[in-house]
């Protein structure tokens, strides 16, 4: 199994979700109002004057699905901003499979 961790501009979150739906992803988790530093400088929800925030998405899926996803995602990552990390993980069988 692969674990993807994506941080993007919170305003682009719905676009990312639409993209995931297209690829047929069946499970993901995300948190809003993440702060961070990146190539576009600091982005923090507690800065009342700018309201630039990130969303953080975590997604576990099978290797093949991950490849397909990355292929679709890569060209749009620049527009979404942020980063995308991939690492290995194991899925503890038990709950209904949603990947």
């Amino acid at each position, binding site marked *: 199994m692969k674990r993807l961790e994506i941080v993007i501009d919170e305003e682009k979150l719905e676009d990312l979700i639409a993209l995931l739906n297209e690829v047929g992803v069946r499970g993901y988790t995300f948190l809003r109002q993440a702060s961070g530093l990146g190539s576009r400088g600091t982005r923090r929800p507690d800065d*009342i*004057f*700018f309201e630039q925030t990130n969303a953080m998405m975590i997604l576990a899926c099978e290797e093949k699905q991950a490849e397909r996803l990355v292929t679709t995602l890569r060209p749009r990552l620049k527009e979404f901003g942020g980063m995308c990390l991939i690492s290995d993980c194991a899925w503890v069988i038990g709950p209904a499979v949603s990947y």
Partner: protein
Amino acid sequence: MATIQPVVLFFILGVLAGVLKSDLKIPEALYKSLSIFLLIAIGFKGGVSMAKYEIMEVLPIALSMVVLAALIPLTAYPILKKLGKFNQADSGAIAAHYGSVSAVTFAVGIAFLDGIKETSEGYMVLIMALMEIPALVTGTILARRGAGGSTQWGKLMHEILTGTSIFLMVGGVIVGYYAGMVKLVSPLDKMFMDLFMGVLALFLLEMGLLASARLSAIRAKGPFLLAFGILFPLTAGFFGAFLGALFSLSLGGTMMLAVLYASCSYIAAPAAMRIAVPEADPAVSIGASLGVTFPFNIFVGVPIYFEMAKFFKAMF
């Protein structure tokens, strides 16, 4: 001398809390709720008193005052560039902030008039809402003249026109105007008029906290920005008072026009400049606007603009 309104003491409390490193925190949701309330209330109050005028009669006057407000950034820009030695982007962005207005300074002006039982023309709030447009557009043009890359005019106009500030103020005006026309102001005023000062108090507390955290940002150009942040609004206010008297506004209205010209933005303008002039450093404009000009205006400026209004009203 006019008395200082008790409500502005809350700003000092906020600054103190910041300086003393008190653990006082205004929840973000409260800050946003208060600002939604204030914007609607300012609009509502203006709308109710507009219901007493013929709109078509006042429209030309109002529009002229809006258009003339474009002179403010045009004056500020060369000062910032030549004397302040800011680069083009920063000069334009700061000029846009000073051309734009501060709804909270406006609110303090209204509170001042309430305190001395004076009133102003209701449509001042419409002027306030509209003034953002020439100020931000002029500032952007100045900032980006000859610069590479295209300006996102579409996105900028959308941001200005549908931004929370203008949207809620104009919305408040419409509801207030309608309520005034059908004579159903009554149960809504219990909230949007009676509580106005109390809500302003809490908001100023948070403004004080924010200002104390922002002052450090202007350190590098401190002396210049201190002088600019005080002298420029005085000049703009003088010009506003002159215009108000020229257009035969009431005494209160003349003062409020001076307040509008003198005040500068730290909420709508930063959001707009981030889109239009992303290369400008927002810390400086917010620091000068919120850390110098805002406190100057609410403590010292407002009574002075009132004296200016009296002076010009006596002249014309």
